[in-house]
């Protein structure tokens, strides 16, 4: 039974791979896209519009409380102040909304429609993030799910779950780790991970 299932999945996997290969080749052959178009787009997302943009935003919020407030009040305008590399127009950068962790409050971002993730700031979502089990369980029992992924929050910490949608694409400003008072902006950026900005982890501890 299970081997049949795996066989089916292998076949489906191969069929999807073949379909993608054929589609790209046909679109290039017809001149709809160039031979390097897909690589150029992937390069942009993997090297320019990635989570380091989010890390810059968070690090700035840590060192500049006024900026942090503006970021919470009007996220796109505050982000525009930083003059980050321009994201793909219309591709996920609009409707950005930041929520801040603080004493006794932890924020978790989920996306039940699974296509509303703020790529230009967070980079591409981790694979498991789009799994329906994660999405539905995180909405229902966030404390338990967070504990399972290694984030044990005190019982009295309030957990707020935010569902990203076409109208609001949320990301978390994690708390600044203690012992980082002398850190440069670059050192602070290194502490900010994609997971911390989704809310499934805290910003890395100072080492």
């Amino acid at each position: 039974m299970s081997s049949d299932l795996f066989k089916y999945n292998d076949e489906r996997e191969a069929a999807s791979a073949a379909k993608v290969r054929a589609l790209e080749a046909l679109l290039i052959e017809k001149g709809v896209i160039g031979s390097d178009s897909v690589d150029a787009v992937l390069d942009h997302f993997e090297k320019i519009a990635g989570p380091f943009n989010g890390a810059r935003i968070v690090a700035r919020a840590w060192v500049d409380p006024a900026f942090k407030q503006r970021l919470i009040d009007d996220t796109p305008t505050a982000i525009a102040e930083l003059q980050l590399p321009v994201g793909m127009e219309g591709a996920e950068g609009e409707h950005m909304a930041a929520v801040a962790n603080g004493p006794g409050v932890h924020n978790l971002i989920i996306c039940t429609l699974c296509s509303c993730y703020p790529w230009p700031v967070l980079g591409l979502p981790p694979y498991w993030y789009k799994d329906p089990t994660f999405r539905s369980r995180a909405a229902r029992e966030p404390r338990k799910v967070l504990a399972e992924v290694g984030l044990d929050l005190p019982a009295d910490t309030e957990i707020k779950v935010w569902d990203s949608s076409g109208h609001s694409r949320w990301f978390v400003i994690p708390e600044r780790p203690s012992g980082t008072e002398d850190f440069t902006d670059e050192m602070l950026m290194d502490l900010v991970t994609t997971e911390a900005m989704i809310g499934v982890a805290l910003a890395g501890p100072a080492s």
Partner: protein
Amino acid sequence: MKLHETCTTDQAAPQFDHEWQRRAFGLALALSEFRHYDWSEFQEGLIATIGEWEAMPESERGQWQYYDHWVTTLDKLVDRHELLTAPVLTDADDHAIPHDHAIPHDHDH
């Protein structure tokens, strides 16, 4: 228990289990970037495709594979916009012009 091995280890890299998923991702974005469709249309298509999968009985729908839905959506949009069937329009520099943005035909001649 971890939900997935990439959880809490991801620092920056995009997460794809297979190269075809990465190509499918890039292809869908490239077609949007070159204005063959609006990104919102792809998103709405993806939501609809996943909705159809979720509405199917569990016994019929097979294992969850996000990028299968991605590819199904891509296929639908390529068909809908006739990207492989319509003649390619080119501009003065020999670049393809998306049909939706092509200069309207002049009916006065």
